[in-house]
């Protein structure tokens, strides 16, 4: 039996698996082309710098871009230091196989596997309802200032979500700093912290940057965690304090495609918004790939 099929299988197996590769590549390109072709006509300077108008059927997406920008900025400010410090702790301060490392690693892995919508629930249940309301209670309890969805809670929620991304990237970079450099620094009389600041951190700055960029690209695209922690459909003003809600590109795509007053009339806007979102995440991913490539090359060298 086998002998008969052999010449056929010799071609068929690489052929079929090659076809699978081609299918995936074709899917990726057709998705990008589809969005680009339908989205590019709608993109103009006006589209990028104006607020939505005519009851969401016209105008631009400026507030959504600004909202996304502030979201990822706050998220990075909160998440990157925590992630970097955790990575430093795991690789500099404790033994590799100690229970502390195992527990933290387990926690980070678990964190990476939790569905994003559960982060949304967590943001609502913990930050908005518990921390926020608690802060309002402390302030007198008459006004709801913190106990409602806002950009701060959304950013912290997103920071927790992207924490594993930062930790993994920074850890990988720390491993590229040679043991000898640390030993030399310690032998010269520098303390552990001085060694970290002057030797380890400069050596892995690219890794921290990679982690930040990966986190930003993830944070800019995620919608589920901010559904009920701060994203808004339309806001007449840009957010100017931490207690404001904000517009967001991904949320804008979702809401325009499903709940817009006239889905067909705004199709152009939806495609263009999607294109802007996609271009943004691609740009960040590309940067991260380039930086990571540099980190890996350094490790081999």
């Amino acid at each position, binding site marked *: 039996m086998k002998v008969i099929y052999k010449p056929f*299988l*010799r071609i068929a197996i*690489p052929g079929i698996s*090659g076809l*699978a*590769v081609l299918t*995936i590549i074709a899917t990726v390109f057709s998705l990008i082309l*589809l*969005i680009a072709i339908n989205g590019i006509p709608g993109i103009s300077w006006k589209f990028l710098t104006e607020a*939505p108008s005519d009851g*969401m059927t016209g105008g631009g997406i400026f507030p959504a871009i600004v909202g996304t920008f502030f979201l990822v900025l706050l998220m990075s400010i909160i998440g990157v230091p*925590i992630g970097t*410090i*955790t990575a430093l*702790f*795991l690789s500099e301060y404790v033994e590799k196989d100690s229970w502390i490392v195992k*527990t*933290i690693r387990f*926690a980070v*892995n*678990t*964190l990476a*596997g*939790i*569905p*994003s*919508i*559960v982060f949304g*629930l967590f943001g*609502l249940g*913990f930050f908005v*309802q518990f921390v926020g309301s608690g802060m309002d209670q402390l302030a007198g309890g008459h006004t*709801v200032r913190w106990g*409602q*969805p806002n950009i701060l809670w959304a950013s912290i929620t997103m920071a*927790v979500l992207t924490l594993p991304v930062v*930790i993994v990237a920074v850890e990988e970079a720390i491993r590229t700093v040679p043991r000898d450099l640390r030993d030399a620094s310690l032998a010269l009389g520098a*303390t552990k912290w001085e060694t970290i600041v002057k030797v380890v951190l400069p050596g892995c700055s690219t890794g921290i940057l990679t982690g930040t960029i990966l986190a930003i690209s993830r944070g800019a*695209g995620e*919608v589920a965690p901010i*559904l*009920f922690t*701060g*994203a808004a*459909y*339309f806001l*007449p003003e840009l957010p100017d304090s931490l207690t404001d809600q904000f517009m967001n590109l991904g949320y804008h*795509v*979702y809401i325009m*495609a*499903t*709940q*817009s*007053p006239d889905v067909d009339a705004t*199709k152009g806007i*939806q495609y263009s918004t*999607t294109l802007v*979102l*996609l271009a943004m995440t691609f740009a960040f*991913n590309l940067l991260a790939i380039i930086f990571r490539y540099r980190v890996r090359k350094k490790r081999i060298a």
Partner: protein
Amino acid sequence: MILKNITENSGTNHNNPASALMLQEKRKDLRKKEHRPAEFLIEHTIRIVSFLSIAFIMLIFIFVFREAASIFSPHQGSHTTTAATETYTIETYGEPENAIPEKSSVETYGGDDIVVLPSMESAVRPDDEAIPKSSIKNLFDKIWQPTSVIPKYGIWPLLVGSFNVALLSLLIAAPLAILAALYTSTFASNRIKEIVKPIIEILAGFPSVVIGFIALIVFASILQSIFGLQYRLNAFTGGIAMAIAIIPVIFTISEDAINAVPRSYVDASLALGAEKWETAVFVVLPAAVPGIFAAILLGIGRAIGETMIVLMATGNAAFASFNPFEPVRTMSATIGAEMAEVVFGDFHYSVLFFIGIILFAISFLINLTAETVVRKLVMRQFK
């Protein structure tokens, strides 16, 4: 001073246990040497910050559970109320499919003073007391009608919906991704590898809302016209979109697993006269099975937890059917769509958090299985 002592001691007889002990003590002293308060403070700050990720896991569990807890108590009431619950809005009854369009009619856009976020608008039933309360008993019933006059919170259809979409997407994604991984790591030249891998990375970088959007606007219409489907949005549309989202996960992990197969296996097989395809199918693939199994598990986990794609592309009707061409409502989409409409502290609100716990538990178990069981399998095989 201490250093001097050590040097002096180093000449002493090491066979003497007492002096050896003393030497050890001295060495400890040497390590302790000066007390640096700044260094001490920094180290402990770092330690505390590092424990944050553990704390977050616990907080996630505790607080998602806390909000869900009231379904377990007979006296469920609004333990947390905010000013937002004072807002009266139009109540949506019945058809879940209509829930989304109706919500938009409530929303204000362009208004200056009252801009209501979907999550802030809440529906308060004036005749709240007249409605019979649901309880934990019928939580696993077969009807999910949270907004009908007699609300029914049976999460069975949602479970069916989640697994329906996840399995459909797996049926499409797993063969494609595993075959592609096999090709890239066994047949492809280095040049092709360098093209394929970044493309997969690009695909992994696609925000899920973008895939959901394309599924909603494009796939749904194409599939409807090809298959002549009754419903435009259904489990199949969602499954295809979800497949795109999980292909990178399955591909990456399968490829790692295939690359981890020892080179000696391949060499031995080739040396025995097996052809390249025979080696790939009969040697490499079987050896990589545990890793591929992990890839599939993680793919399912991702598919069950994914929200935006199913929220946009599956039609969101809570029929408990495994028919792929009917609309389904998944657990994640239910949370995403309905959290915006519930009263804080309401039973419905708690049930949504309860669904969150189920999602958390499922993804946790899947990740745990993928990690531990598979690691053991791999270890046993290669050692």
